[in-house]
C-alpha cells in the first residue's frame, strides 16, 4: 500500500518523528527519528544509530516497525506500520534531508516559544551516526491523541507503471 497525497505532504510539514520496534523476545523499544521521506511506495526513515541502537537491533531481528509523525501545531498524528523494514545506508548523504526536516520542525516549535537551540539537542547526531531504515507501509493508524488512537486509516493501492 502507498501513502496518500495528504500523508506525503505531512512528511515535510515540520513533524516530529518517533520510531518504534519490538524485539523477538517481546521488548518494545522506541527512539526519536530525524527525518522521513516517501520513496515510490516505500518510506525512508533516518534515525541516529547512537540514540536508536535498540530500535535498530529490533528491526534487524524481525523487520517490524512503527513510525509516528506528529505535527506540533495541532497534534495531528499518523503512524505507519511495516513488517519488512531493513536497515541500509548511513552517513553524510542524509545530512541535507535531516537538516531540512529539522528546520521545518524547529519552525513549528518556535511558535510555542521553544527556541531552535532546544530542538538542536535532539538533532545533534554526527553524520556518521545517521542511518536509514526503509519499509513498505502495510497499515496506517490515526494516532492523534484521544479516543480511538491507534485506529486504522486507509492507505491507497500502489500504482504500478504500465
Amino acid at each position, binding site marked *: 500500500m502507498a501513502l496518500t497525497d495528504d500523508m506525503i505532504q505531512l512528511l515535510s510539514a515540520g513533524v516530529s518523528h518517533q520510531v518504534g520496534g519490538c524485539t523477538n523476545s517481546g521488548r518494545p523499544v522506541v527512539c526519536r527519528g530525524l527525518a522521513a521521506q516517501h520513496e515510490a511506495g516505500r518510506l525512508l526513515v533516518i534515525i541516529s544509530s547512537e540514540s536508536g541502537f535498540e530500535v535498530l537491533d529490533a528491526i534487524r531481528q524481525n523487520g517490524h516497525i512503527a513510525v509516528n509523525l506528529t505535527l506540533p501545531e495541532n497534534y495531528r498524528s499518523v503512524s505507519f506500520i511495516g513488517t519488512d523494514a531493513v536497515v541500509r545506508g548511513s552517513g553524510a548523504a542524509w545530512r541535507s534531508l535531516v537538516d531540512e526536516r529539522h528546520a521545518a520542525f524547529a519552525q513549528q516549535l518556535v511558535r510555542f516559544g521553544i527556541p531552535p537551540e532546544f530542538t538542536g539537542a535532539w538533532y545533534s547526531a554526527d553524520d556518521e551516526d545517521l542511518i536509514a531504515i526503509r519499509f513498505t507501509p502495510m497499515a496506517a493508524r490515526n494516532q492523534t491523541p484521544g479516543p480511538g*488512537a491507534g485506529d486504522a486509516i486507509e492507505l491507497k493501492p500502489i500504482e504500478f507503471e504500465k
Partner: protein
Amino acid sequence: MSAVFDDGLSLFGVRRMMEGVIPPVLCTASVDRIPNVSYLSLCEYVDPLHIALSYQFFNRSRENVLATRRASLTLDDPYTGGGVVMQLEYQRTDTEGPVFERLRAKLMGVASHVGMDKVFHLRGADIYQVLEMRRVPGRKELPAAQPRVDLPTNSRLLSERMAHCEDMADLLDTLLSGLSDLLRISHAMLWLFDSSQKVLTLLASRGYEVDGAGAEISLGDGIVGTAVREGVPIRVGHMMNMATYMRAVRSRADESGLTPVLQNEIPLPGLKEPRSQLAVPLRARGRVLGALLVESQHDQYFGYDDEDALTMLGGQLAVAMSLMQPPEQEPPAPAPVKASAQLEGGPALRLKRFARDNSVFIDDVYLIRGVAGAILWKLVSEFLRSGRREFTNRELRLAPELRLPDVQDNLEVRLLLLQRRLAEQPAPLRLEKAGRGRMRLIVERAVVLEHDD
C-alpha cells in the same frame, strides 16, 4: 526483578520530565510484536520504582499493554533537551487513592481550559514498575537553567514577615508583595472559596491592570477552581503546548461522538496569555478555604520547588485566616446620628438585595454577593433602623439572619473583601476599621433598601 538505572539516575530526579511540557511517548507491541507508538497526556511519579500513566480511553496502546504487560516510555527534559528511555512492566490500574486523585486533578485542571473537563475524565491511573531507565545517548544538551532565587531561604524570609502581621489586610499585602520581592513572582491572585455557593471570589491580586476584587468563578473552573475542588496543587508549565494537545483530543472526541455537552472555553483570568500557572489550595483544619494562583509570561516558570514553597506559605495563610479573629467585643450602644432621610449629597442610594444568593446591587450596579453581600445588607439595615454606625465582629458572628456556616472560619476575610469592593465603587458607602474587632459604616447619602423577598 531489580531495576537497572544508569548511574546517577532516579525516578525522583527526572520528575521535571513528567510535567507534560513535552508529552511522553509510549511504545507498546501486540502479541505478534507489531509495535504501536503514541503520545500520553500525563505521567506521574509514584515512588522510586514506579510511575503512573493516565488511562483515559481504551485504544490500541491499552489493548497491547493488557495483552503483554510491557511498554517502553521516553521522557524529554523540558530544560536541557536531554531525555530518558524506560522499560516498563504494567502492574495494575488504580481507580481511587492518592495517585489516581493527583492525576485526575492535573488532568481536570488543564482540560478545563478547553472545555474538556466534562469529557476528559480519567478512567484510571495505570501503575507501572520501571525495570530499566537510561539516558538517551548522543544528545548535545543545553545547560540546566539556574534557579531564579534561593527559594528555601527567601520562602522562610517571607514566612517570617507574614508571622509578624496583625491583621488580615496586612497579611495579604505582605504575602503578595513578598511573592514579588522575594520570590520574583509578579502576578498573583488570592481566591476565597464560599462552600455554600460553590464559588470562588477574588480577594486580592498583584501585578494586573485591574484589581478585580469580588470577581467570581465557579468551583472547578480553570486550574484554580480545580485546585480548590480537588484540594491539590496544579501546575502547568507550558500552557500553549498543553492547550494544543487538549484541543487535539477534543477534536478526536468530537469525531467519535463523545462530546454531547461541551462547555465554551473559559477565558483565563489575569494575564491575557499566561505561559505558566500554578494554583495552590489554601488548606487549614482539613478544609480548603481558597487558593493562591500565580502566573508568569514565561514558559516553565514554576517547578516542583515552587509548588512546595507556595503550598507551605499558602498553609500558613490559611491557618492565619482561620485564627486571625480579633478579640470579641460587645456591640456598641447606638450613637446619635443624622437620620438617613436627612443625609445630604444628592438623591438616595438604592441598595437592592436578591435573597436567592444574597447578591447586592447599588443603583442597579452589581456589587457583591454571598456572605459579604449578606453582611452589607445587615449593616445598612441596622443603620437605617437604629442609626448605629459601629458594629462588632461578634454580633455578626452571632447574627441568626446570616445563617452562613462558613462565616465562622474567615469572617475577617469576608469583611476585608467587602471593604475593598466598596472602596472600588464611586458610591458614597464605605466600611472602615474602628479598632480591633470593630468596623464603622460610612454613609454619605440617604439610602433606600429594596429586596425581592
